[in-house]
């Protein structure tokens, strides 16, 4: 959730959300829903959730603020997964022949070759290794392909503006591929990449890879020439494609300008396209050093920029997860981290009492990256260690003096209120010092008691919102270890409820979302996810959380590719609150409606039953 410290940073984002909302939603919703509530209809259908959100949105920004981080991560996840899902859409169309080609025998062969190769080290293999890395191909596959062949299977000439296929040629393996659809999709993917990575028109996507097939995309003035290649995109292929594109744009200017969506008119370009359908049975296995290696290094480097952008996105997600993991540890501080081509390095400052985090961090990164943890174990009782850490880590704006004594950190001179707030939230600091004594210090723009309390509250909220409860297959109750997570979660919620003391601007709603994995029918998953959410909700109520604050919503199965099945079977809990003064006023008004409990209950049910009703 947004903390008071970074609110301004998110205001631009809020503006965009606002614009979006204004466009998509108007105020008729509000009137409509009020009518419905007044008449006491208890069974409305389908879009009650959106309308409830709607009406609130008309009143204030609360939901936007509360959901912004959620939407943010969801967006990031979607973008992260979308290139693949687009590939998945194309794959079935041109995939069958690929599958034929890559028989399981070849896969086995690949595996054994891989093992052989892994053992051999040498200049040659190193060179190949680098090339394989540049080409984004697993090494073994690279070797295999390098010794076997490449083959251009399809050539597409696409109208740049519309994505409509102007002409295409297939080799004998791809007689019945759906080139029209592939062509539009390529354009859409290209658009998607440009939007997602804020690239310019010039830095368009150069390649899409799936399995050992690559689609190489060349963007011209008015047309796009794409070639689908099995094997490696060799220079020959690439250059031929570029030459073809240039000659078509030059020689067929009129045809291109006149193109009216009718492929019949483009016959004249077919010979040029056919010319691109090159096939090589054997590429020379090994060559002496050639000048083009240096040349291609530059070229390929540029080509890969876009894709690297995507990869780094994925890695950054993992780094973010690592950082929050490290921060959740006792007596450990993150001094810095560094990302290199195949390695992530974390510099940690740890108390000797704290454990080694390497294994957990490695688990986050999987096999893709080597994780190096440089842990400096320092006896944190030593003043120098501390002063060093504090000064280096915080780079205090006002250079305060610090002294340390048994559990107390004395600060003298001037300290910025923000620095002080950060100190107070530093897990490493608070694990060693029970008190930060500023009685002899001047706190510049000191935090009010109110602000301090807000910091406490936002810490608590963050903690609550970060929890995910995982269920076992088709279970709607938690196993003992997850139950203990639930217990802590309920305690935190109770504490928050106590701190809020009825103030809805602090604790306005507890939104419990239930999820199921992909197994089973949609209806079954919906029920399952609802029961899971209810299980959590019931526990909260039993522990003393105000039932009226709780809204549950079954999500069914939400397809998130990066999550394994266990993580899909989850319940998340979000604390939603309103911050602006206007919001509080609205809540008061709502209170005056004095709806009966039964009424509220039925509304709550409606909110959570949307999807069920939808399909009945």
């Amino acid at each position, binding site marked *: 959730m947004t903390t008071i410290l970074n609110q301004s940073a998110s205001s631009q984002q809020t503006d965009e959300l606002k614009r979006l909302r204004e466009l998509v939603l108007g105020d008729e919703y509000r009137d409509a829903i009020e009518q419905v509530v007044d008449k006491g209809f208890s069974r409305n259908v389908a879009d009650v959730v959106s309308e409830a959100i709607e009406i609130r949105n008309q009143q204030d920004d609360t939901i936007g603020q509360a959901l912004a981080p959620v939407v943010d991560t969801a967006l990031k996840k979607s973008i992260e997964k979308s290139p693949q899902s687009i590939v998945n859409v194309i794959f079935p169309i041109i995939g069958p022949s690929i599958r034929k080609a890559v028989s399981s025998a070849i896969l086995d062969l690949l595996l054994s070759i891989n093992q052989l190769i892994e053992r051999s080290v040498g200049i040659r293999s190193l060179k190949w290794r680098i090339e394989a890395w540049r080409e984004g191909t697993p090494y073994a596959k690279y070797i295999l392909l390098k010794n076997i062949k490449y083959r251009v299977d399809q050539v597409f000439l696409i109208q740049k503006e519309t994505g409509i296929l102007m002409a295409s040629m297939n080799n004998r393996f791809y007689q019945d591929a759906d080139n029209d659809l592939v062509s539009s999709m390529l354009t859409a993917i290209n658009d998607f990449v440009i939007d997602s990575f804020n690239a310019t028109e010039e830095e368009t996507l150069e390649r899409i890879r799936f399995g050992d097939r690559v689609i190489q995309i060349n963007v011209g003035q008015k047309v796009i020439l794409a070639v689908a290649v099995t094997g490696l995109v060799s220079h020959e292929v690439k250059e031929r494609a570029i030459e073809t594109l240039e000659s078509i744009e030059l020689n067929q200017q009129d045809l291109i300008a006149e193109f009216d*969506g009718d492929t019949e008119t483009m016959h004249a370009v077919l010979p040029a396209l056919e010319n691109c359908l090159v096939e090589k049975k054997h590429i020379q296995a090994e060559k002496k050093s050639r000048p083009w290696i240096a040349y291609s290094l530059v070229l390929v480097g540029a080509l890969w920029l876009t894709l690297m952008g995507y990869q780094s996105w994925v890695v950054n997600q993992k780094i973010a997860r690592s950082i929050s993991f490290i921060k959740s540890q006792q007596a450990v501080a993150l001094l810095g981290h560094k990302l290199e081509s195949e390695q992530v390095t974390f510099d940690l400052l740890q108390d000797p009492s704290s454990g080694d985090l390497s294994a957990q961090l490695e688990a986050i990164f999987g096999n893709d990256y080597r994780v190096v943890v440089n842990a400096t174990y320092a006896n944190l009782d030593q003043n120098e260690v501390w002063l060093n850490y504090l000064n280096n880590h915080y780079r205090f704006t006002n250079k305060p003096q610090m002294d340390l004594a048994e559990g107390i950190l004395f600060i003298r001179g001037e300290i910025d209120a923000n620095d002080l707030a950060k100190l107070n939230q530093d897990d490493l600091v608070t694990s060693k010092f029970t008190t930060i004594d500023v009685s002899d210090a001047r706190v510049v723009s000191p935090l009010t008691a109110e602000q301090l309390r807000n910091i406490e509250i936002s810490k608590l909220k963050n903690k609550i919102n970060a929890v995910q409860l995982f269920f076992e297959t088709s279970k709607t109750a938690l196993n003992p270890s997850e139950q203990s997570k639930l217990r802590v979660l309920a305690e935190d919620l109770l504490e928050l409820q106590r701190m809020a003391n009825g103030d809805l601007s602090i604790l306005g709603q507890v939104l419990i979302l239930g999820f199921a994995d992909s197994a089973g029918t949609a209806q079954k998953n919906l029920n399952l996810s609802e029961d899971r959410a209810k299980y959590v909700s019931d526990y909260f109520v039993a522990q003393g959380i105000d039932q009226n604050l709780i809204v549950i919503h079954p999500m069914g199965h939400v397809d998130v590719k990066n999550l394994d099945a266990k993580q899909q079977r989850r319940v998340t809990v979000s604390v939603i609150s309103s911050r602006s003064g206007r919001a509080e006023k609205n809540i008061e008004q709502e209170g005056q409606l004095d709806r009966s409990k039964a009424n509220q209950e039925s509304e709550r049910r409606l909110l959570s039953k949307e999807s069920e009703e939808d399909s009945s």
Partner: protein
Amino acid sequence: MISRKICMLGSFAVGKTSLVKRFVESIFSEKYKTTIGVQISKKVVTLTAADVQLLIWDIEGADDFIKMKTRYLSGAAGCILVVDGTRPNTAKTANELVELMQQELGDKPFVFLINKHDLLHEWRIDDAQLKLWQANGWAPIFTSAKTGENVELAFHQLAERTLKESVKPT
């Protein structure tokens, strides 16, 4: 064959994706799904003059529209504009979308659908509103992706109208 790019326009959950599905596969799926990106489907429509292959661009998720509008609309020969008959508010969005479309594409044909016509007991489009649209020349077609009512007709009408227009890139 002649190909035409057309775009689906309308607020979230008005039924754009369901209409396309209905038209392309004649299956109505109750499962609500919002992903991010564009889904492209194609279907060949046989008209008296010629066969037209429609490449139907359906943007997924409301959020992306603002960001991707230009590219999404680029080169489209026409649009299917969809409003939800149970949510009058979606009509307001439609006005803005038409403006946006005209800004991006100039004067391209669009057909105007009021969808979910099967939900008669929740129908919230009144006569005054209808008259206003008709006066504007928007001539709404009532459709239902669920029953298939008028879905075929709507796409055919657009195909017909795009065929009359030249779509040479400017």
